[in-house]
């Protein structure tokens, strides 16, 4: 399988603080890689560097064999991002927002693309609603539609189902599984929901203090650490240093 994301020994320092300490990983085509770690472990910094919002102190990032540093625009055309911490303009209707972003990503056949996403994500009846007046679950699906408007090859997801009720959360997870299978895209998923990660991810990276402390298939990590589920593995690895101290 072809690697759509290649991260080679990236570091990020904020002054003397080392936020990310030289990590490397790949994400294959048609793969969801889980990025796990406690708060402050460097997940958001890593995603920020993949999006070109943060400049690595050193190291290299390749997306679809293109070096990010030299091909920022070409790469941004083929990736997208969703996070509960960013929103779409609240005063615009859903349709206006999707139309604006379709233009920014130079989408051809905008009408067909919005219709396709509306059907898949069940937001057809919301198209003329004001975005700021939607519920959390509706906003989440609209944000997902925005993130897919450019048919990305690489999707970066930061807590995509945070604050969603179980039904909507399950809908989003099912949608992501099917969409990934259909389009053969790569997804990097940062999440604190271990059930979600176990269900969606082929393999996971465990980060702590800016480093990758373990990685592998969820079931292999559970066996390796002698635990019964991924949450217990997460807790063991998160607490390991503080216990030894």
């Amino acid at each position, binding site marked *: 399988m072809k690697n759509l994301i290649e991260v080679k020994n990236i570091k990020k320092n*904020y002054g003397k603080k080392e936020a990310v300490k030289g990590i490397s990983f790949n994400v294959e085509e048609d793969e969801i890689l889980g990025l796990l770690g406690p708060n402050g472990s460097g997940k958001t910094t890593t995603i*920020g560097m993949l*999006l*070109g919002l943060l400049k690595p102190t050193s190291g290299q990032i390749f997306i679809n064999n293109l070096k990010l540093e030299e091909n920022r625009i070409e790469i941004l055309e083929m990736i997208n*991002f969703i996070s509960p*911490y960013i*929103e779409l303009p609240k005063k615009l209707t859903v349709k206006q927002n999707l139309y604006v*972003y379709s233009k920014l990503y130079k989408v051809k056949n905008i009408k067909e693309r919005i219709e396709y996403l509306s059907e898949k994500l069940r937001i057809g009846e919301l198209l003329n609603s004001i975005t700021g007046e939607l519920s959390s679950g509706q906003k989440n699906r609209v944000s997902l539609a925005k993130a897919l408007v450019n048919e990305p090859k690489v999707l970066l997801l930061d807590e995509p189902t945070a604050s969603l009720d179980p039904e909507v959360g399950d809908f989003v997870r099912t949608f992501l599984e099917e969409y990934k299978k259909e389009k053969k895209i790569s997804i990097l998923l940062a999440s604190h929901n271990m059930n979600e990660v176990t269900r969606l991810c082929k393999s996971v990276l465990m980060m702590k203090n800016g480093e990758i402390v373990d990685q592998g298939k969820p079931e292999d990590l559970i066996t390796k650490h002698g635990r019964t589920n991924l949450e217990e593995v997460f807790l063991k690895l998160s607490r390991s240093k503080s216990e030894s101290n």
Partner: protein
Amino acid sequence: MSLTRIYGLFLRHFYLITRSFPRILDLVYWPSIQITLWGFISNFFATHTTYYNNAVGVILTCAILYDFLFRTSIGFNMLFLEEIWSRNFTNLFIAPMRIGEILTSLVITALIRSLIGLIPAILLTSPLFGISILDLGIFLFFLFLSLYFFGITLGILVSSGLLRFGPSFENIAWSTMFLLAPFGCIYYPIETLPEIFQKIAYLLPLVYIFEEARNILINQTVNIENVYYAFMWNAFYFSLSIALFYYSFNAAKNKGTLINMGE
């Protein structure tokens, strides 16, 4: 009433102010600028009571010109701030847009916003006060163009500050125009300023624009040099603002401001 809770809420704002250089700057310079500006205006009218006798519309014309500058600059800043307020900032900067495309789009939108405000103001002055800004003739276009460029330049400079310092720079965004107003000689000739302030004023395009507006309306003559110098300084500051914006964008990428637009 709990003094502890009152003190707690006071501390919330006090800590915020002491952690933010733009907020401290805003507190310090605002009163000083107001006093300086109105001091010069009062001083001028006290010593030159007959200066505007033969040109009733001069003050109003200058007010419209200044308002256009203000609207252009604030309009540009507003567009940038809207993205921060709506938490859409990150979405914008992960879209495949070049910095030049973002700036060009904002520059065009700011112009349309300013014209929406300007046209009714121009139309109102004639029936209400019996004067017309169109008395400035063809040079009105050049004066507006010059003001537009300077307004955009200030907008880009402030946006660079927002990129570098985050939303705490917002207060500066609102008050940039007032900071420059005393040096702009909007309502009084440059001779009203102390000599040291005159030297600073000559480094800004504003003084040439407003001096020329008064010159045309009061003396009925055109000094093409004023228009020329205004454009020269505009070109200089505009280039500087673009360079600073690129610098701030790169600094924000190093510092992480683009993914962390909080207070």
